[in-house]
């Protein structure tokens, strides 16, 4: 279980929270042509790695905003699918729809997915390749709209509690999709898909990421930040300043423990330097190559 101590939630000022609420739905700053050149070539390397696996379904996570000060590298997980629609590789994922104020499932090109970072100078992507006996049912479930939308929640909350159906975040949708694909299905129960998925996850020992905050900001924060919630978290957890949230790292930890044969590849770039790292441990902060890592230089010429 990963723990983050004394996160600055308690230090939020009303003004900063309100400002952030607008930032999330603002148009991101567009990268320069040079930055976009690097991101596109970096994306080609990621695409080649996924294609080389031959796997029909791969777990993929990318860094979003610059969170290195918080010791959090990945914020957004999704499922990369082979031959879904008219693209050889695409990503199926959950986003909060700012226009509709609700979560929705989207299909996005792999290139677009990788471009969705707020830091064009540094980017990280984590790929978890699954053995065929796990990848095939995941693809079958993910491309089936009934199933993909069956585990979609009606309300978005970025800090959604993983064992409640009241809200959902993007990573929670992915882990529930995994449960739908790998769990017992609907045999012997009339519970809805999300409830079944969460029951299976609990039975399998799934552990979300635990955020420990330094005070009680959630008593007022949801009032000013529409995609944060308090009402789905157990009171005893809130009383201890703890918030359990599904994050890419918690999904990967679950897969590493429960899926023999799964393997992880991390690819990052810092400027024009690209590092490819194989293993469940993380590539060094700053995208610095370690022993055994592959490195590439995206020449400007």
């Amino acid at each position: 279980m990963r723990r983050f101590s004394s996160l600055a939630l308690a230090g939020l000022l009303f003004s900063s929270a309100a400002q952030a609420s607008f930032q999330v739905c603002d148009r991101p700053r567009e990268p320069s042509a040079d930055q976009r050149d690097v991101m596109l070539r970096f994306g080609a390397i990621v695409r080649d790695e996924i294609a080389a696996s031959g796997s029909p379904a791969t777990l993929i996570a990318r860094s979003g905003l610059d969170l290195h000060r918080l010791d959090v590298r990945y914020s957004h997980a999704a499922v990369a699918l082979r031959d879904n629609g008219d693209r050889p590789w695409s990503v199926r994922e959950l986003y909060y729809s700012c226009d509709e104020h609700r979560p929705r499932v989207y299909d996005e090109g792999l290139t677009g997915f990788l471009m969705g970072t707020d830091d064009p100078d540094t980017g990280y992507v984590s790929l978890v390749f699954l053995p065929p006996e796990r990848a095939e049912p995941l693809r079958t479930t993910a491309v089936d709209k009934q199933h993909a939308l069956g585990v979609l929640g009606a309300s978005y909350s970025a800090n959604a509690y993983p064992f409640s159906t009241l809200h959902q975040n993007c990573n929670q949708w992915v882990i529930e999709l995994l449960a739908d694909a790998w769990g017992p299905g609907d045999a012997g129960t009339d519970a809805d898909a999300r409830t079944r998925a969460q029951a299976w996850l609990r039975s399998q020992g799934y552990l979300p990421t635990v955020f420990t905050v330094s005070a009680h900001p959630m008593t007022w924060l949801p009032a000013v930040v529409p995609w944060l919630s308090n009402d789905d978290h157990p009171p005893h957890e809130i009383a201890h300043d703890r918030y359990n949230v599904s994050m890419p790292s918690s999904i990967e930890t679950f897969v590493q423990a429960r899926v023999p044969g799964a393997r992880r590849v991390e690819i990052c770039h810092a400027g024009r330097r690209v590092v490819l790292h194989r293993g469940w441990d993380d590539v060094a902060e700053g995208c610095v190559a370690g022993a055994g890592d592959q490195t590439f230089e995206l020449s400007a010429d």
Partner: protein
Amino acid sequence: MRPLQKSLATLALLACAAPLSCFAASSAASSISDSLTQSSGSVSDSLKGSSHSSSPDDKQVKGDYKVTDVAEVDGQPGFVELHLQPVATGAAAGAEVYLKLPRTAVETGHVAAGATVTALQRPYGIEFATTQPRAAFFLALADDVARDMKMAPVAL
């Protein structure tokens, strides 16, 4: 300043993939496509061959080019068209092309008639860069790459 930054970052952390979420709506594809137009566009939308109506062979667009003209584009305010003549001559020379791109890209790159620019073949398409100093100012994306930038909601 630091506590404020940390607070905002914490919020961002909890809002998974926040930046793109604002485009995750029925207009997502067009919004993202629009966002690309400041520094990139598809090859089919951006490049024309010497006849001014044909599509050039993408793979032959490479090397140094002289900007012989910068013209307004009829019916598309905010866009200009560069007439690019290959500097080299002979078999190794690239093909003459017309490049349509946003005026902001031209202004950002300080590209004007008489300048020399370079076309570089890339895995995603063609990078157009100034030479002095060297800096990309526009990316012409292969059509499949341009399509790969878009997203669409899943519905029954």
